[in-house]
């Protein structure tokens, strides 16, 4: 370090041979210390980065964004997608925003994605974090809309269904189901989201007239359930029964290990002395 005062010419560095590693012992000591610093520093660093990457799983990405892990790795945070968006939908996340620092995201209640047919944000992405193979914008899956039926006007019986009418993929992403209201001679027209068609553009969330939107868009994995692979709905999938998968890996693995060890499952319990 600059231990000298510039006004003292005598302190001018004249030699590069300052002996640091004077002894072997000190060398080992230094190495271990260095390694410790590197490890703890590295762990802290990784923690910060990973934490940041996972901090806001609710952030909506531009159309064509790869799955989170790949997107986070590939996004170079250059903001060119943000510049390319003609509707000012996208923002680069600043600190404490809803998305990892520096990555593009959008909040549909502010400005939704209007699904430009030429996908200019995707075209601007230099790294392929926004998939270059997305050709048709209606195939993008930015998120999935879901309806808070307790606060949706239509679900209370009012004639609203604005989400349905503004949806660019009406009947593919949102449909309306009619049901009798029973309380009077009026039917209810209930909007329902179809996950297969929903792009997550958020035009519905933007248009929802309630004080806080009763239809919201979030990344699909946060809200979408899944029926177990072991069951097929016989009335919806032709030949579903024959396409059942092999028994689960866990079960198979258990069988195998039991054979290996001459040890059948449940023996521990069966042989235990207590009743």
């Amino acid at each position, binding site marked *: 370090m600059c231990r000298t005062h510039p006004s003292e010419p005598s302190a001018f560095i004249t030699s590069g041979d300052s002996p640091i590693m004077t002894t072997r012992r000190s060398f080992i000591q230094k190495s271990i210390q260095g390694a410790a610093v590197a490890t703890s520093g590295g762990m802290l660093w990784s923690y910060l980065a990973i934490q940041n990457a996972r901090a806001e799983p609710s952030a909506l990405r531009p159309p064509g964004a790869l799955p989170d892990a790949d997107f986070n790795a590939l996004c170079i945070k250059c903001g060119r997608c943000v510049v390319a968006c003609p509707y000012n939908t996208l923002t680069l996340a600043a600190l404490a925003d809803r998305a990892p620092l520096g990555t593009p995201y959008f909040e549909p209640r502010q400005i939704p994605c209007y699904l430009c047919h030429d996908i200019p944000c995707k075209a601007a992405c230099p790294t392929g974090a926004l998939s270059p193979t997305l050709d048709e914008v209606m195939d993008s899956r930015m998120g999935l809309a879901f309806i808070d039926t307790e606060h949706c006007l239509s679900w209370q019986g009012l004639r609203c269904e604005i989400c349905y009418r503004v949806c660019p993929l009406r009947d593919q992403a949102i449909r309306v189901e009619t049901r009798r209201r*029973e*309380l*009077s001679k009026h039917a209810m027209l209930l909007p329902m989201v179809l996950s297969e068609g929903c792009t997550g553009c958020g035009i519905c969330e933007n248009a929802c007239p309630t004080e806080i939107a009763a239809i919201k868009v979030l990344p699909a994995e946060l809200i979408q359930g899944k029926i177990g692979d072991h069951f097929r709905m016989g009335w919806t999938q032709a030949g579903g029964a024959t396409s059942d998968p092999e028994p689960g890996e866990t079960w198979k693995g258990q069988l195998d290990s039991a054979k290996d060890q001459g040890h059948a499952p449940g023996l521990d319990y069966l042989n235990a002395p207590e009743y």
Partner: protein
Amino acid sequence: MNISGILVVVPPARIEGATRALNALPGVEVHHTEPTTGRIVVVQEAETVDQEVAALSRIKALSGVMLAEMVYHVFDETPPEWDAIPADMAAS
């Protein structure tokens, strides 16, 4: 004319079917349903007290009904004047 308020309780999952079944009964109107608890408020009209009791048993006999209790009751003496209006319209 007897008008009674009846509380009906069904399993929440069956509330829709029960509502439909109740509405299908003559003189019975569902006024309120509470999907989370399965409680249904029903208003029933009957000419005589006997009919009223019989009607309550009919509700109790509906599939899925766990409880049907008369909570409130009024006797409405005013005779219907508006014969011109079909009876089912009056329920509108």
